[in-house]
């Protein structure tokens, strides 16, 4: 019998234990509330939002921002898997089986990559009616979105993994991960533009990788490819690579 690769088997297991109804509600309902309730409610206050050389209506702006937000949220799974595996003894159990630490780390990367792609696609499909008027799909749109999903997943998944390897108490893990991800969510351009924001806040937006992720997604959807977006892609790759290396080092050093 031909066996599937150990990493694939671990991805299968990761997806099985992660995809519970609570997670799916979190991944679909929560963004939808933002897109439809906040998106339309704020339309009375916000006529249009400048992005690059185009003006977007607010529902289109927030719907595209929610794709990045959702990719980030789905990567929380990576931290939760590692945290639960350590807490419930599965980390040692897996590593006493036919798996290497590299299999384990890679399986988490693939899991968050898949979840990032799927959740990004769900919001893209649901949000499509809102921004199809402003959308300018072209040959670069899909590669941009796939790039953003994968690199964003690796980046935020690595951050969640780093947090999960450093904390021992469940209270500490929950507080830190929620605080960090809350900062990422709301000090970013996912919900509002950097232009026009007070300068310290606008600076804060660009210290946050979610801003870069959201900008790249918007560039893909609304066809605003500028040199600044290329710079943002470079920064995102560098941040993802650095945090991924740190996450792997910390994971491989975990005491057994």
């Amino acid at each position, binding site marked *: 019998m031909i066996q599937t690769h150990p990493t694939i088997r671990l991805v299968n297991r990761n997806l099985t*234990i992660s995809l519970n109804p609570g997670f799916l509600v979190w991944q679909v309902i929560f963004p939808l509330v933002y897109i439809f309730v906040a998106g339309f409610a704020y339309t009375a206050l916000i006529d249009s939002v400048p992005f690059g050389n185009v003006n977007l209506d607010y529902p289109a702006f927030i719907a595209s921002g929610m794709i990045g937000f959702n990719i980030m949220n789905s990567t929380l799974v990576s931290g939760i898997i590692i945290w639960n595996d350590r807490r*419930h*003894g599965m980390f*040692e159990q897996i590593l*006493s089986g036919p798996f290497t630490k590299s299999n384990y780390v890679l399986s988490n990367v693939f899991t968050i990559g898949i979840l990032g792609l799927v959740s990004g696609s769900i919001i893209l499909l649901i949000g499509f009616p809102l921004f199809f008027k402003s959308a300018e799909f072209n040959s670069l749109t899909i590669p941009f979105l796939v790039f953003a999903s994968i690199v964003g997943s690796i980046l935020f998944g690595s951050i969640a993994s780093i947090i999960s390897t450093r904390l021992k108490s469940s209270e500490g893990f929950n507080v830190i991960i929620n605080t960090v991800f809350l900062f990422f969510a709301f000090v970013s351009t996912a919900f509002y533009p950097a232009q026009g924001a007070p300068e310290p806040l606008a600076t804060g937006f660009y210290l946050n990788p979610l801003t870069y992720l959201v900008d790249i997604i918007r560039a893909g959807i609304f066809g605003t490819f500028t040199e600044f977006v290329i710079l943002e892609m470079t920064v995102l790759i560098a941040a993802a690579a650095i945090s991924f290396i740190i996450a792997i080092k910390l994971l491989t050093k975990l005491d*057994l």
Partner: protein
Amino acid sequence: MSCITTRSLSKSYGQVTAVNSINLDVRSGDIFGFLGPNGAGKSTTIKLLTTLVAPTNGTIEILGIDAIKNPLQVRKKIGVVLQQPSYESSLSVENALEKYAMMWGVDRKTRKDRTAELIDVFDLGEIRKRKNEDLSIGQRRRVQVAREFMHEMDLLFLDEPTIGLDPGARRKLLDFLRSKAKTGLTIFYTTHILTEAEYLCDQIAVINKGKILAVDTPEQLKNQFGQEKTIKIHLSTRHQKLVELLTGINDCEIDFDTGTDIIIQSSRAEIVLSQILQILIENNVQVEELSAVPTTLEEIFLKIVGDSNASDD
């Protein structure tokens, strides 16, 4: 054929030596008991043998494979039930078994068959649909042990597998392990319940403070360390001068307990007993009950570990 061979195996954590130059030879098909008090180095030895941690020194050969050079090759052939619980909280018992076998690359049909078989063997039928997070400690332990039999292996490490199990479940597990050993599975077994080790194991090693103190069959250990026997005498009434009467007897320890019970420990129990009975008869002390208690593995264990602690002090 040797299934586990270690030479000068050591593991230190900073200044603390958890395992100190141990040599083990475990024969294929044996149930090998590994006994020791808390913190003796049992779990660290298991982590070394299962390649979870690397040794500071020494060699490990598992199933003919150099475990330090080829840890993954070793892990593909062994099963491990560690001391701490391990479970997927969100999965039901049935799914946990099935998913674990999938992780090991077991085909779908075999997974289904084995799940049904192990649910039956480990009495998990009533809780098969229940999530792991909703199980009691004992139920979770049963699932954890059952799960390890979902995949093929040549060697199984069980680190205190009966923690939290009721006597019925414990006996059922021990009998199941015996039946598995008869099919050729080698089992490396640690426990604090020495009657289990006596019931189950072909060979027993005693470890204390990281060092192996004795390795042999339970019977040989008893012969080697258990020459001292215990005799219990129950008298019908208290006797005022009993202590005085028996003081002169050599080569034994006498505990007068409540005054009507006398417990004698001696390596020359037969001679001591005849002397005591003679004295009791001469003084009209009536014996109501007399029993000789065979040496248990627990006494042997306590003696070996106690001697080792005393010599260290």
